[in-house]
């Protein structure tokens, strides 16, 4: 989240699309309802009329996978009607920067496409740079046809309300009403979850949100923002800690094979991030990491730049017999991964599977899956009993980036152990097995700092994450940091190895030598906005609202008519506020370049309406970039593409039906694609209020099973009538990948939609069941497709094609 949970109370309008917050992020409703009591409007856009829809002021039914068609039209309406915040757009976004003339979109494909590789050469998606400074040239007004703003307008001009209706099913008049309601009530916030990301256009869906909020000046303000409601309790923290193949040390790109040195890596990633990398390497390798040995760079494993290291690459490699050992902790892919029959085959080819869990899950017992022959499965399996959250201590970071300490209240049952202890023990054992080795490959194990105390282990690890002063540092203001102290914040981290931090964004969590995640002041809220700065600790730097510099104008004064968050105090010569100011340096005022970088994590320092390819040159180190900006692989602007399995042709450009960057199937024979002829209905899946994700935990709680005893399929009334199916009848749901039998729920919540002149029935299923636990049942993910977004690697579980037929016996019994 750019903002945080309690900040939802400050919004005047909500656009909730791709989330059923009322069921899946229940506590958000506490704050959304508060805002609603004060008059805020709620817009809910969803293929299914659910509990969130029932409290919405406007509910729009949308076809799964058609979000860009709808949002493109909302953006277009905002642009055409002049509903945007022109001053904010000019100051805080790249609207005025000049883009290259070569850049274009033709028949749904951007310039630079290589069809054979499913890839773009992105050179033309760039700015027109000034030859001397290598910085983008700037237009005098938004009307300049070469500027980003004009390109944006031209790009979205095709997305008329009528086109949106044809593709998405949202009536044209409602598209306009939503655009106007959202634009005319500010600040407005956007909430989304997996409903928006689990598509082959997941990143571009979210890019639409970024563009819309930048146009409306809603980023960096209380009650605004783009807020991802993340699924798992610590999915935020797991990402922060780089449990993602592509990152290290907190969203720092992990090295590829062609980065043999830190310098080679810096050429691609910039000097700004190099500093944090050095701090990370110091945290991992301590005194063994020196400037002379490139801070131990050679001890990092380098990825093959062309290889897929996501969970889908893992499954594909397991199936190919290349991945030998898979170790899963608290994750149950035999329920939650799509295309489950294939996942089962892949697991069956592993040498060893290790599962660290509270329960015996579908993954741990995959060899017992109904229909499987255990004798034929040669995989060794270890099931290690893990402690649950109330049985151990440590921190988690929720969606609002609040890092909270949890105390261990009770001992784990039986011989179960905390994951921290298991990980620590295994590492030491492996290190011992290599003791005395002189093979360079084993150096990382010997050179790493890994000697955590047996007591208070979690706190010791948090100290390493937060960072230490290693040798004396004198800060620009004359303050001296002594070796052994904990760093007070990101600003104290040094580029030369005199400080360390395992994840720079958490620098300062031990500021002043105290574990700030333990703070409990739920009473003091000087802002009156629900920030409570003395309760736990928020990364980065206890900042509650990211990009809050954008809440001010060029002079550092809060925009007129807005709630002041931060401001430049000309007398004290300092950025001040009720929140930690999001500026590179609190002493550098609006007259300096640093004082104008409201989006300082972008190379340009401003918000990106066009995600142009850009590297900001380093003023001091010639030839190296200071920082770069992320450009999605599939385009600098979002473009609508149909899901891989879709019942209709792409209305905008039939030649580019799907996202051109998606390669699917990846594994011939294992990833079949169904067509509407055999599988005429669109299936979307999601979780429910009573069961959670794989259901490993919730399906072992008797009263949650009483509330939601089994998996079902929700069918629109019109479809059920056609199929002669009544509520409670058993039906067989099938896709190109698998089939299952469940009871039907006949409901008006789902509808047959009118798309591109065709009738398109949309059905829904929860995905929380499997063959283990107290409540067992078939897993919906045998049906779903494992095509993924080319950049994010999220699978398209929100839209695939299925067929539904009544089960004969059930009909006969009636």
């Amino acid at each position, binding site marked *: 989240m750019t903002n945080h*949970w309690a900040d939802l109370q400050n919004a005047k309008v909500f656009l909730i699309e791709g989330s059923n917050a009322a069921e899946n992020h229940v506590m958000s409703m506490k704050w959304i309802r508060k805002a609603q009591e004060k008059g805020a409007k709620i817009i809910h856009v969803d293929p299914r009329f659910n509990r969130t829809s029932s409290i919405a002021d406007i509910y729009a039914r949308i076809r799964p996978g058609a979000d860009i068609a709808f949002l493109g039209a909302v953006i277009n309406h905002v642009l055409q009607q002049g509903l945007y915040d022109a001053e904010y757009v000019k100051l805080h976004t790249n609207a005025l920067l000049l883009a290259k003339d070569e850049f274009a979109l033709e028949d749904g494909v951007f310039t630079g496409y290589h069809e054979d590789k499913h890839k773009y050469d992105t050179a033309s998606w760039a700015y027109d740079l000034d030859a001397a400074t290598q910085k983008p040239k700037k237009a005098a007004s938004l009307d300049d046809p070469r500027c980003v703003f004009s390109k944006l307008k031209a790009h979205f001009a095709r997305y008329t309300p009528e086109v949106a209706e044809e593709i998405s099913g949202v009536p044209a008049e409602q598209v306009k009403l939503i655009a106007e309601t959202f634009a005319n009530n500010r600040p407005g916030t956007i909430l989304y979850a997996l409903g928006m990301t689990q598509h082959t256009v997941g990143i571009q869906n979210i890019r639409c949100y970024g563009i819309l909020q930048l146009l409306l000046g809603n980023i960096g303000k209380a009650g605004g923002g783009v807020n991802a409601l993340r699924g798992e309790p610590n999915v*935020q923290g797991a990402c922060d800690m780089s449990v993602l193949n592509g990152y290290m040390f907190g969203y720092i790109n992990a090295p590829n094979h062609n980065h043999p040195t830190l310098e080679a890596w810096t050429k691609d990633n910039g000097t700004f991030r190099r500093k944090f990398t050095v701090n990370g390497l110091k945290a991992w390798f301590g005194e063994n990491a020196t400037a002379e040995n490139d801070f131990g760079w050679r001890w990092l494993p380098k990825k093959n730049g062309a290889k897929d290291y996501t969970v889908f690459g893992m499954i594909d*490699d397991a199936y190919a017999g290349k991945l030998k050992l898979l170790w899963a902790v608290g994750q149950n892919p035999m329920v939650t991964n799509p295309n489950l029959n294939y996942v089962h085959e892949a697991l069956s080819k592993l040498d060893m599977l290790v599962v660290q869990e509270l329960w015996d899950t579908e993954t741990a017992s995959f060899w017992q899956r109904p229909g499987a022959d255990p004798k034929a499965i040669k995989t060794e399996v270890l099931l290690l009993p893990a402690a649950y959250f109330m049985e151990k201590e440590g921190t988690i970071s929720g969606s609002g980036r609040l890092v909270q300490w949890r105390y261990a209240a009770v001992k784990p049952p039986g011989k179960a152990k905390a994951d921290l202890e298991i990980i620590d023990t295994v590492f030491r054992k492996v290190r011992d097995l290599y003791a005395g080795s002189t093979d360079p490959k084993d150096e990382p194990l010997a050179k790493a700092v890994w000697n955590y105390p047996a007591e208070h282990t979690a706190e010791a690890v948090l100290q390493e994450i937060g960072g230490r002063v290693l040798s004396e540092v004198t800060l620009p203001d004359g303050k001296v940091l002594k070796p052994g102290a904990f760093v007070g914040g990101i600003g104290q981290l040094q580029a030369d190895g005199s400080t360390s931090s395992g994840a720079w964004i958490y620098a300062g969590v031990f500021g002043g030598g105290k574990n700030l995640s333990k703070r409990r002041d739920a009473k003091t809220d000087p802002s009156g906005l629900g920030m409570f700065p003395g309760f736990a600790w928020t990364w980065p730097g206890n900042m509650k609202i990211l990009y809050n510099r954008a809440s001010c104008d060029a002079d550092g004064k809060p925009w007129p008519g807005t709630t002041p968050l931060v401001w430049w105090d000309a007398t004290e010569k300092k950025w001040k506020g009720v929140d930690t100011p999001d500026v590179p340096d609190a002493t550098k005022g609006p007259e300096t370049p640093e004082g104008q970088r409201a989006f300082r994590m972008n190379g340009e320092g401003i918000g990106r309406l066009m995600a142009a390819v850009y590297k900001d040159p380093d003023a001091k180190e010639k030839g190296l970039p200071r920082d770069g900006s992320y450009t999605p692989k599939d385009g600098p602007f979002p473009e609508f593409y149909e899901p891989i399995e879709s019942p209709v042709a792409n209305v905008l450009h039939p030649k580019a039906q799907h996202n051109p960057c998606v390669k699917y199937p990846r594994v011939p024979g294992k990833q079949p694609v169904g067509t509407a002829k055999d599988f005429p209905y669109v299936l979307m899946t999601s979780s429910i209020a009573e069961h959670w994700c794989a259901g490993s935990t919730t399906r072992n709680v008797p009263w949650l099973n009483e509330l939601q005893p089994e998996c079902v399929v929700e069918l629109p009334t019109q479809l059920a009538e056609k199929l002669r199916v009544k509520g409670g009848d058993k039906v067989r749901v099938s896709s190109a990948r698998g089939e299952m039998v469940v009871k039907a729920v006949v409901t008006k919540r789902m509808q047959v939609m009118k798309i591109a002149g065709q009738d398109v029935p949309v059905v829904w299923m929860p995905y929380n069941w499997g063959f283990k636990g107290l409540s067992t049942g078939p897993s919906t993910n045998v049906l779903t497709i494992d095509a993924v977004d080319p950049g994010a690697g999220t699978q398209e579980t929100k839209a695939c094609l299925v067929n539904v037929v009544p089960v004969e016996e059930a009909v006969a019994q009636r």
Partner: protein
Amino acid sequence: MSISRRNWLKLTAGGGTGLALAELGFSASKVQAATGHLKLTGAKQFTTACNFCSCGCGMVCNVVDGKLVNLEGDPDHVINQGALCSKGAAMQATHESDRRVKTPLYRAPGSDRWQELSWEEALEKLARKVKDVRDSTWIATERDGDVEYPVNRTDAIGFLGGAQNTNEECYLWNKMGRLFGTNFVEHQARL
């Protein structure tokens, strides 16, 4: 709690398709009043946060003689102010459940059953496997065009998980994975 489980079920399920269940949330005062009936005198209180969704609702564990006698929403918490949803309110059952795995288990190749192992045996097996796989699949260098690059990795070990773990566990999990030489370090974020 003064609301019996049955009544609670009625109260929640009675909401039908509306928001009653999802929005139920036990108000702080109700929970405090209700818990007053339980003999919590002498109970030690520990604060924690829910482990289902990412709202991060605060919880208070009441412990008597090492036993978890009550778990409820934390009234002094800035996100939930004492309330919990249907899932969060069910958390106590997860600690007490007799379905928890309580000892390391092993399933041999081709076997149709689990067998119990000691921790020492289990972790020894795992550590040896890590070493064997690492040693037999190590990629020291890799050619791209005309250049032979040092890459120092294995692509044969996969780490999966983290979103159910603490930050400290995630940090060590990732650190261990990369030190072993694998980049297959992933968790639920994409699922």
